[in-house]
């Protein structure tokens, strides 16, 4: 196996579970809770190091993930005291846990094979160097095994509970009515997120994983309407970010994980600007078109209230519009055959114009 292949595959194994779970976080408006969990697992990872000395062990991985769940529980508990709002509660809990993790790493630097660089960037470049060897047999890179397990857990979680997650995300009321506990769904998702960020920690660190969780999912949200398509698209976007990020990083000789996170952001910006359905450019031109039609209908409806025939001045006064806006709207209505102008200054609606005004008025309520 080439080193490139191992690093890229490892990155894809980070991107896939993150994209799937991130879709749910974005739709449930819990992106910042995902962010909090990804920070909060740090002390768990450090404790796991104390105990097992090797992050590869699945048990310590689960142990670390417990801290993610603990974070979710603490946020909820603090909010429920009624003394702190949710956003503050998130901010207090995750900064405290992350600070604890960084403190432990610095304080016990000698006994923990973990440094702050690792926390920030992960060590994906080293993934080809760490192989799982059992009984002298080389079973391939450790990252394939840990992240493989994480990916299997995330994929099966989403596949098994797809229907339930969908209901619980889009209609909490219905979910409760059919006996689906929203609390259970919440904590199952938090558990899955915790396992994923712990698994991703070695590769991309505690913070950049947030880019993989949120950005591809949000990008997909700008491009499609259906849940399964959004998930598929998020997976594709995450993978694309991972692969392109790797090659750019290799070319520029910079942080691989940082470059991958930057690519998730770059793809997001592209969709933000140019998505045909939800991009800013499309929204801008649609808004302009709507405004044009809207002004026209307003003009036609006002001509209707002012009587069969009216004048340009009268309309300008009555609508409170500037002269320029009036004459532009009139020109346009004339071209569309909505009005006629029997003499200069005079304006009257055609049948088509009256119909358009009536249709607009009827469509309101």
């Amino acid at each position, binding site marked *: 196996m080439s080193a490139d292949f191992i690093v890229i595959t490892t990155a894809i194994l980070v991107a896939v579970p993150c994209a799937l779970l991130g879709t749910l976080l974005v739709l449930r408006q819990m992106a910042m809770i995902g962010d909090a969990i990804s920070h909060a697992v740090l002390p768990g990872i450090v404790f796991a190091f104390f105990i097992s000395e090797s992050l590869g062990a699945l048990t310590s991985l689960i142990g670390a993930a417990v801290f993610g769940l603990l974070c979710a529980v603490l946020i909820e508990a603090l909010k429920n005291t009624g003394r702190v709002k*949710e956003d503050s509660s998130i901010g*207090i809990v995750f900064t405290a846990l992350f600070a604890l993790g960084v403190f432990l790493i610095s304080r016990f630097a000698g006994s923990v094979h973990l440094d702050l660089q690792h926390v920030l960037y992960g060590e994906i470049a080293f993934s080809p160097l760490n192989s799982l060897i059992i009984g002298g047999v080389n079973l391939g890179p450790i990252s394939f095994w840990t992240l493989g397990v994480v990916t299997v857990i995330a994929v099966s979680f989403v596949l098994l509970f797809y229907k339930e997650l969908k209901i619980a995300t889009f209609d909490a009321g219905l979910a409760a009515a059919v006996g689906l506990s929203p609390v259970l769904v919440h904590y199952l998702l938090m558990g899955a997120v915790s396992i994923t960020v712990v698994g991703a920690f070695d590769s991309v660190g505690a913070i950049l994983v*947030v880019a993989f969780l949120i950005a591809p999912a949000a990008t997909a949200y700008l491009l499609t309407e259906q849940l399964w398509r959004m998930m598929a698209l998020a997976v594709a976007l995450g993978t694309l970010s991972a692969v392109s990020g790797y090659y750019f990083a290799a070319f520029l000789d910079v942080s691989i994980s940082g470059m991958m996170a930057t690519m998730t952001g770059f793809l997001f910006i592209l969709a933000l600007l140019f998505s045909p359905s939800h991009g*800013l450019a499309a929204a801008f031109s649609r808004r302009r078109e709507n405004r044009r039609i809207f002004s026209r209908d307003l003009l036609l409806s006002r001509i209707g209230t002012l009587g069969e025939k009216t004048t340009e001045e009268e309309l300008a006064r009555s609508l409170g519009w500037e002269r320029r806006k009036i004459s532009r709207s009139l020109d346009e209505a004339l071209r569309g055959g909505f009005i006629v102008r029997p003499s200069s200054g005079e304006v009257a609606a055609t049948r088509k114009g009256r119909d358009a005004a009536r249709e607009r008025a009827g469509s309101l309520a």
Partner: protein
Amino acid sequence: MLDLFSALFTDYTLRNVALGCAVLGVVSGVLGCFAVLRRQGLLGDALAHATLPGVCVAFILTGTRTPAILLLGAAISASLGALLILAVVGGTRIKQDAALGIVLSVFFGAGTVMLTYIAGTGNSGQSGLDRFIFGQAATIVREDVVTMGILAGIALVVVAVLFKEFKILSFDPEFAASMGYPVGKLNILLTALIVVAIVIGIQTVGVILMAAMLITPAAAARQWTDKLSMMVFVSGFFGALSGVSGAMVSASGSNLPTGPIIVLAATGIFLLSLVFGARHGFLWSRLRERRNRRAALEGGSP
């Protein structure tokens, strides 16, 4: 400990460090009150992360480590982050939480790319930039304290002068608008002041944990009082207390980054406030409840 305390007054370096951390604590504590009450604590988190690429770009462009220039870069990139959040939330169906998450992680990612780029160019001055991630109070020198002090002074004066306006903006922006206050501009000003607090804090606490300096002291102060002006004072005090104690522990030589210690100190103060806070602490509400119940049993009205 006592030695450390006396060193605070005699040791020149330590005095600078403590002073810088105190200034940071006061400013972030004061502005954090408004952020917390307007439920914008996590905006501070995203903007703090968003400063990192600005610091790096400023360094790459100028090659200096002059604090004023690096902090200017930080402020510019945090403002870009704020604009992006505004564009995403205002122009698309993506909600605030995801917009914050994206800005936070992607700006930070871009920052790490730049940090590794700077490290790769072998520029001798680069070693200092790492301190912006977890903070390193020990590196604070007189020049930093002066920069921080000036920025903090400006921010605090603005808050003092516009206190009444910020209060009504935070409590009831609609009513403020009906009275003719330029709510949009006041919003921008308050966000800009929060950016100032962040910029002051990133050298000491670091970009990742800066959010705690805005949120935790303010949330702690809220447990002690029901008056905004009092909350602002108490929060500033708690901020300074966490800052100074964190800086002193960190400077005591165990090679610890300052940020986490300050944050753990602030969290400790928050937990104590949650239990003992005079207005909302668990302890007093329990006692009040019991007193009321007894009064009711004895037939008196509570």
